């Protein structure tokens, strides 16, 4: 392998050096391409135009607007035009409800990301062997990925039904009494998290299996010959090798959980008593629900969300940078 590569490179270069005299009689081409590359700025940047227009109108401008709105108060007619300085932010951080909402958001991330990754990891490690049976299993485990937030939430809200839902039925079978899955302040956020964990398992398993599939066979073989097997092989060889995928799933899973909206909207509408209201849902409640149109306050919350996601993304890039160093 290592000897053939430079050889073929040498062959290539010798072919190229032979070709140069052939190319020489045609200087017009060269100068033409050179002239082209000199006038790139205008003609070639056209290729960026369609995407750039969309991004300018629907990402850059709204980003600026969010900042402007967060410094504005809403007048009686619902237009957010009066400049009020940092009043929205003062209201935000002196509001005990907002602290609760931030805690809910963090808890929701914890409740969704940790179980999703733990369960997906166990399943993918068990599935990591190419066979017909495993291919069927993989398809079955991937199915939740097809479910939209609204479809998954509708299915789970039937399970959560206190009177005739299946979850309470199972509890009763074991001699317990039913739980108000969505109506009890202690359980609402957990129930939404449970739904989310189910929805995300498929995606996580697909990513982890792709990572496990790219682990070189000889590494596994060498570890086997050294006597590693079963759990030890998984723990010391496989898990470290798919660390990039695990890291990716933790970061994207966290960001995704911060952005969750549909399952909260369908299952609890943030209740009871805002026990399942997260940051994004509170943005919706202040900005849109019941024609509130409190755009100033909601935009201040949006800026907090942007900041949190930016911090996590920077951590992600930091982690990836380290990964490249290792590789």
């Amino acid at each position, binding site marked *: 392998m290592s000897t053939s590569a430079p050889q073929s490179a040498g062959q290539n270069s010798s072919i190229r050096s032979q070709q140069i005299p052939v190319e020489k009689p045609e200087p017009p081409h060269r100068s033409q391409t050179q002239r082209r590359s000199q006038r790139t700025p205008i003609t070639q940047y056209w290729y960026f135009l369609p995407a750039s227009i969309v*991004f300018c109108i629907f990402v850059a401008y709204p980003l600026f607007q*969010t900042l402007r709105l967060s410094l504005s108060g809403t007048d009686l007619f619902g237009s957010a035009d009066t400049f009020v300085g940092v009043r929205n932010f003062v209201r935000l951080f002196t509001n005990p409800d907002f602290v609760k909402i931030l805690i809910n958001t963090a808890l929701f991330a914890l409740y969704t990301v940790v179980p999703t990754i733990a369960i997906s990891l166990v399943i993918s490690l068990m599935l990591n062997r190419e066979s017909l049976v495993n291919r069927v299993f993989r398809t079955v485990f991937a*199915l939740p990925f*097809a479910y939209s937030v609204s479809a998954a939430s*509708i299915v789970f809200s039937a399970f959560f039904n206190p009177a005739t839902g299946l979850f309470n039925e199972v509890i009763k079978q074991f001699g317990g009494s039913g739980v108000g899955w969505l109506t009890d302040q202690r359980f609402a956020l957990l129930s939404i998290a449970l739904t989310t964990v189910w929805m995300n398992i498929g995606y996580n398993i697909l*990513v982890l299996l792709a990572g496990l599939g790219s682990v070189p066979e000889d590494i596994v073989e060498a570890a086997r010959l050294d006597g590693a097997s079963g759990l030890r092989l998984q723990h010391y060889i496989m898990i470290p090798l798919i660390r990039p*995928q695990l890291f990716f799933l933790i970061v994207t899973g966290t960001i995704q959980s911060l952005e969750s909206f549909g399952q909260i909207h369908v299952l609890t509408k943030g209740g009871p008593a805002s026990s399942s209201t997260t940051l994004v849902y509170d943005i919706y409640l202040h900005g849109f629900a019941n024609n509130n149109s409190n755009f100033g306050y909601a935009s201040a919350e949006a800026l907090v969300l942007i900041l949190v*996601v930016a911090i996590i993304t920077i951590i992600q890039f930091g982690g990836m940078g380290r990964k490249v160093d290792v590789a």
Partner: protein
Amino acid sequence: MNLNRVSILVKRTFGILILLLLACIVAFPVYYSFMGSLMKNADIVSSPPRIWPEHGLTWSNIVTAVHLIPLGRQYLNSFGSTLAITFSQILTSLLAGYALAIMRVRGAKIWFALFLGTMMIPGEAIIIPNYLTIASLGLRNSFIALVLPYLASGFGIFMMYTFLRQFPMELVEAARLDGCSHLRILWSIVLPLSRPAAASLAIYTFLTHWNGFLWPLLVAETPQMQTIQIGITQLQSPDDFNPGLTMAGAVMAVVPTVIIVALCQRQIVRGLTAGSSR
């Protein structure tokens, strides 16, 4: 030797049994939504609720759902908007990816960073100004409103760029020497050879936007303009617990995506891992 083989066999059977148990748990909501949509109320709202139809199956849940909400129209809205977004994203991503990876325009790094930067902004955080933009253009409750903000995506450009970076440049150079314009090369050389990447992007984009929720909820106001994802939530009513009916709605919404996930796992994985590996 023989004992060893037996113990391996036992272990493997045990593993398969555990997997089977886990698969039953994970697949149960899928099974129950499909079965429940066909079960009679006597089975599904009985106490205790049955997970197996003892009174036979019925189409009545689905028929009722179609009568309660304009499902056909909402299907059309979902398909139309999702396909429009998917095609547009492939086009805009291919154009930008070509300029970045193959033409290597001056300042490509800065452009790439800007495009990647758009991925950092959570869509939910800028939903208020976007809603106001759509409202001020008088586009509320329109088909255009459903697709407009999503005609390009940073992820799509990122995916196309990573794919085209490995494109055989000899082909492009040869075509240039033959006097081909860049648009021509893009159309007749790069596009046909980018089909795998385009397919992955298409499937990923389709899944994402078919399942979209918050934006359609805000901009589509009448049932006639809503997407199926919003429509099926209207089947839920606080006073009338009717799981057969709501499951029927949920099943209608997931049939296209279940087919895609069952058939196109390889493309999906390629799309997913574009972000994870490097």
